[in-house]
Each structure stands twice: as C-alpha cells, then as structure tokens.
C-alpha cells in the first residue's frame, strides 16, 4: 500500500487512547442549573462574590449577546451549538476559590500531577541545567472547570510587585485595575463568542507588572475542562506597565468525551510605553476520536494592545488539540514604534478543523509586525490560515513581513491560506510569502532507505518545518511542545 494511503488508513485508526490527557477526575462539583438566562449570569456573579458593577457589566454583555448571530465566515463546519443545553458554571465542591496548596483537593492535585504540571512550589527546577536547558521557576495558576484552584509562587511575585492571581480575586482585590482595563482591548460587543464570554466568564488569570519591573519568572496558567457538557469561558487580562516585561504561557487539556465541549475564552493584553509581553500557548484540548466524535470547540478571542510607544507584544502558539479551532491572536499597534509578532504552529490530524491566524492593525508611526505561520495538516483535517494586515492612514512607515507555510501529510487533508492586506498609508511596506509542501511518498521512501522509520521520517521533516517557530517558545516549554507535536502526528504515516 502506498505510504500516503497507509497514512490515511492509520489516521483513521487513531483512537482516543493516543490522547493521554483523556482521563476524568472524579470529584464532587457544584453546578449552575443548565441553560443560559439572566439568572445564570447572576448565579455566576454571586458565586464569585462580585461587586455590583461587575454584575452590571456581565448583564449588559448578556443582553447584547442575545441580539447577536453566531459567525459563519470561518472554514469550519459543526453542528449548531445548543446554548441552552450547557452548564455555564461548575466548581469543585470542596473549594470555592483559590486556596493554598495544602488545602487543595488531593484529587485535583493528582490531576495536575498526571498532566505533568508543577503545582509544587519547589526549587528543584531552579538552576538545573540539562542538555542546554536552563530551568527556571514557573509560577502556575491552575484553573479547573470554572474556577482557579491554586496559584503558586504568589508571595515571591508580590515581593517583585507583580500581581498574579485569578481574575475573580482581582475583581475583588484590585477593582480599579480591572475596571480600567477589562474590555478595553476586546470590547464587550466585539464578537458573538467574546460577548458570550463577557457575560458568563467564570475564571482565568490576571497579571499586572508594575512600571520598570521585569517579571522574575515565567507565569503560566493551566486550564482543565473536567465536567461534562460544561462550557469553559475563561478570561485573562495581562497588563505590563511602562517598561515592564512579562512572559506568560497557557496550557490546556480536557478529558475524552463523546459530546463536544465548548470553550470560548477571551484574552486581553495591554502593553504601555516600552513594555513587552510575550504570550505563549500550547493548546492541547481533546481533539475528538477517530470518527470525529467529541472534541473541544475552541472559539477564542485573543488580542493585544500595544498602547504605549515602543511597546511590543509577541504571540507564540502551538495548536495541536480541539475538534475546531477558531482563533486569531492579534495586535493593535497603537503606540509609535510598537511591534507585534505572531508565531504559530497549527497541527490538524484526524477530523480536526483549524481556522487560525492573526491580525496586525498598524495605527501608530513606524510600527512593525512579523507573522510566521506553519500549518500542518494530516488525516482528513482542514487547516486554514486567515490573516489580516492593515495600515491606517496615519501609520507612516508601517512594516509587515508575513511568511505562511503549509505542510500536507497524505492527500485527504487540506491547507488554505486567506490573507487580507490593506494599506491606507502609502509608505507602508508589506511583504507576504507563502508555500505549500507535502510529505510525499518519495520523500518518505528516501528517508526510510537511509534507515529512518516512517515516524522518524515524519518527525524529522515536521521538526525542520516548524523550527523557526519553536525557537520562540520559552526554553522550558519548547522541548515539551516538540514532543507534543510528535504525539499529535502519531499514526499519521504507515
């Protein structure tokens, strides 16, 4: 059988066992009643002891959402979501909010351990060099279904003046910051999913790095959907004040379920004068089984605002999971001399559908942006890059470089590139490069004749293909991401 044919056959036989995060944690939970109306919004707000202004904010979003239509322009197909057939809030019963590690439900602690996420505040990782990897401390905010269960290294961060906590906590403890910045990058009315999120978001992370502070460690959040039929609507807000720097990473997994789970997050980044935010994602939600049953619907709005002059926001994403990914981390280059970057690896296998890319909106003078996108499609998946680069009339000397490459494994998958380019400033220079290549039978045979197994051959070619992006991940996660890429393409060749 030709290798590519075999590829397709093997992909068909991928089963959920390959998704090693597919286990479920048995704990008691408290849920909001199924369905969505004003009372659901009030329920969530009350559960979180939110101030009145927050409730009003949510209710306004909810009213707005009821008038909106689900978008249909993306190249993804799925059965209509019944928004009344979902739970919008689920929290482990033993605890309502983040606690210290000793108080954490052991079952949950065990879950994160299984996921390989360091919730212990131990120093073992500090300063250990191995294979040129320098480990450093990583502070983690762990979000389980609708609530943040623990945040590590809080005290140490506080000493540096960095606020890192769940968004629920921030709403209570730092209302002035939340009021000022929440919804300032992604307005409540931005789009169907963002508006829904604004109404029902349950938890997520909040980061504030004060003026001139370089955050002393990597920050990360691990999201875990556990409950059945429960949507996860997290909200992340990161603010880097003047001259501040922070590197943040999010990871996500979900158990294997027959039915689809909805995930609609909003992430807002604000970089003030000369501040820099580096935001990395390793997205590994459950992708569904061999027949395309189950899997997470991942509809995410991520946007960064380079509000200050000389500011910089950099998005790096490794997208391997989800049945459907709808995601366009973007940069608004408002400040003069600000910079935006987007580095992406998006892998689709089996029946996965990916529609992802970025928007670079040049508003300030001398702004520059860089887009490197690597899409890999295997199985019967569809992988679309959708990007927009635009320069406002006043954005003199705007610069963009876009490189967007697709790699096909087998001949039943598809890769599509949809760039929109719009320059209203005559001094704008936008460059766009795109290629599509294929791991052909001949290439596989050549590698195998040199002693590589089929999987080694694919891994070699894929690693070569993605290396320009991988190098932008924090060192601690690059190796993990490389492994993840190999796993998600397992069985993609015979």
């Amino acid at each position, binding site marked *: 059988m030709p290798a590519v044919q075999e590829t397709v056959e093997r992909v068909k036989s991928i089963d959920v066992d390959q998704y090693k995060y597919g286990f479920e944690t048995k704990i008691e939970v408290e849920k909001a009643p199924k369905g969505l109306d004003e009372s659901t919004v009030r329920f969530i707000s009350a559960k979180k002891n939110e101030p009145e202004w927050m409730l009003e904010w949510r209710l306004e979003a909810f009213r707005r959402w009821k008038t909106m239509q689900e978008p249909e322009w993306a190249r993804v197909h799925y059965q209509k979501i019944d928004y009344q057939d979902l739970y919008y809030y689920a929290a482990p019963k033993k605890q309502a909010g983040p606690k210290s590690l000793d108080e954490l439900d052991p079952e949950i602690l065990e879950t994160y351990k299984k996921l390989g996420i360091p919730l212990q505040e131990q120093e073992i990782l500090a300063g250990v060099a191995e294979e040129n990897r320098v480990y450093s401390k990583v502070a983690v905010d762990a979000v389980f279904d609708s609530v943040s269960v623990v945040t590590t290294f809080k005290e140490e961060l506080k000493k540096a003046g960095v606020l890192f906590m769940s968004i629920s906590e921030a709403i209570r403890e730092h209302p002035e910051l939340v009021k000022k910045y929440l919804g300032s990058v992604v307005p409540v009315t931005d789009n169907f999913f963002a508006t829904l999120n604004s109404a029902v978001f349950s938890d997520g992370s909040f980061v504030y790095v004060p003026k001139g502070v370089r955050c002393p460690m990597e920050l990360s959040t691990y999201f875990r959907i556990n409950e059945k039929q429960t949507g996860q609507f997290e909200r992340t807000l990161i603010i880097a004040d003047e001259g501040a720097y922070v590197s943040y990473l999010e990871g996500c997994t979900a158990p294997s379920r027959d039915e689809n789970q909805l995930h609609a997050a909003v992430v807002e980044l604000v970089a003030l004068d000369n501040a820099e935010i580096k935001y990395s994602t390793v997205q590994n939600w459950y992708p569904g089984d061999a027949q395309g049953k189950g899997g997470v619907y991942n509809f995410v709005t991520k946007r960064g605002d380079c509000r200050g002059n000389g500011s910089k926001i950099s998005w790096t994403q490794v997208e391997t999971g989800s049945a459907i990914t709808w995601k366009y981390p973007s940069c608004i280059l408002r400040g003069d001399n600000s910079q935006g970057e987007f580095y992406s690896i998006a892998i689709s296998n089996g029946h996965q559908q990916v529609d992802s890319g970025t928007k670079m909106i040049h508003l300030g003078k001398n702004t520059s942006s860089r887009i490197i996108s690597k899409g890999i499609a295997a199985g019967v998946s569809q992988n679309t890059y959708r990007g927009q680069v635009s320069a406002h009339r006043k954005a003199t000397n705007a610069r963009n470089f876009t490189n967007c490459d697709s790699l096909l494994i087998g001949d039943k998958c598809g890769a599509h590139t949809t760039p929109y380019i719009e320059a209203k400033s005559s001094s704008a220079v936008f460059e766009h490069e795109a290629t599509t290549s294929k791991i052909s039978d001949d290439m596989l045979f050549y590698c195998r*004749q040199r002693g590589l197994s089929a999987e080694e051959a694919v891994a*070699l070619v894929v*690693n070569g293909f993605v290396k320009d992006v991988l190098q932008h991940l924090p060192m601690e996660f690059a190796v993990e991401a490389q492994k993840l890429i190999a796993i998600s393409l397992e069985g993609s060749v015979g």
Partner: protein
Amino acid sequence: MALLEVKDLHARVEEKEILRGLNLTINPGEVHAIMGPNGSGKSTLSYVLAGKDDYEVTGGSATLDGEDLLELEPDERAAKGLFLAFQYPIEIPGVASMTFLRTAVNSVRKKRGEEELSTPDFLRLVRERAKELNIKDDMLKRPVNVGFSGGEKKRNEILQMALLEPKMCVLDETDSGLDIDALKIVADGVNRLRAKNRGFLVITHYQRLLDHIVPDVVHVMARGKIVRTGGPELAHELEAKGYAGYENAA
C-alpha cells in the same frame, strides 16, 4: 555464500510487468555493472530491492546474506546493509543535511545494535568524509538536496553511503550529471569503499565511469531481465556497438 542473490524476480508497477525473471548473484567483494537501454527496468530493480511502495513483486526471490529481503520494511533493509544511491535524489526542505545525516546514521546504528555516535565523533567523521568528496561545510548546513546542483546531489549520495557503511551498494546512474572532475571524485569515493566483504551494483550508461570503477562483472539488461553477462570488455563492446540487437533479445 552470495552477498546478493536475486532469482527469477518478477515485479510490476501500475499493473505493468517490468521485471520479468531477473537473475543476479553478487559475491562479497565484487563490483557488478548493469547497462541497458532506457526503460529496460534498471531503476525498477533498484527500487524493488530497496522496497519502494507501488512496486509489487509477483514472483521470485531476493536475499541479502541469505536473508529474505522482500519481507523487510525499507528501513530494515537499510539497517541490514542495503544502500541505494538514487538516480534522482529527493529534496527535503527545512531539514539541514547535517541533521539528516546524523538521524540516519544513528537510526541505522540503533537498529544494528550499535551505540549512537556522540556529537563530536559524528562531526569529525562527517567532516572527514565530506572533505574526501570535496563537499563544503556550507552544503551540510543547507536543507537536504534543496538547491543542490546535479553533481552536488550525487556527491551527497556517496557521502551518505560512506557514513552508513552498507554491505551492498546499489548506485543508480551516479555518474549522470557529473563533470569530469566530479566523476573522478565520486569514483575515488566508491573505490575507497571497496572492501572484501562489500558488494557493488553500478547502474550506468557509460564506459567512462567503469574506467574509474573497474567492474568484475558486466551485465546487459533488456526488457526486465539480464540478457548477457561478461567481463569488463563487454562494456567496451556496448560503447562501440550500442544496444542494437538487445531490444528484441528478451
């Protein structure tokens, strides 16, 4: 025992029978040349031996060191010591030649139950072999075969052969596309690898390669089988008279 033993081999591709009862025996230490008209099935033979998909064996046998080759996966055949220098080497974008060589050498070593080479040992070895073939460092940093000239691709094949230390080397028109100096370099590279336990099957259209790599046995292949076998003088005869008469011989 013969190193490579092919008996009454039949193979087809896309329903078309290409190899039609081919017999060939190569003993350790021997160099055999195969010549024959375009389309006679020379490359097909090399692909069937190496285990390419789409080439269906419909009869006969092929053994390496007495072991059935046809049952093995392509990478297992490589590990057992079969090497094919491709007539048209394949480009692998994004993968540095050095990385490719290292992955190949270590995969083969692992399958042979040998230790992987350390990075410094490997680099030393590659530099040495590359130098012998006049391959520059810069080429090793570039993606495998991408943008290589025809001659560079062929030299790169010989470099891979030298590093993988195969038992049985099949060279498919390694001389085509080489200028006179490169031909000499490649031939010297092959000659350096000649050893009493190693066999070569050199597919070529031209006597000039055989001036440098002097074969022990020369075969003429036509319409999917060996139709004549002789000594080095047979190649001279073909050079003078061409394949007239062989087309119909099968």
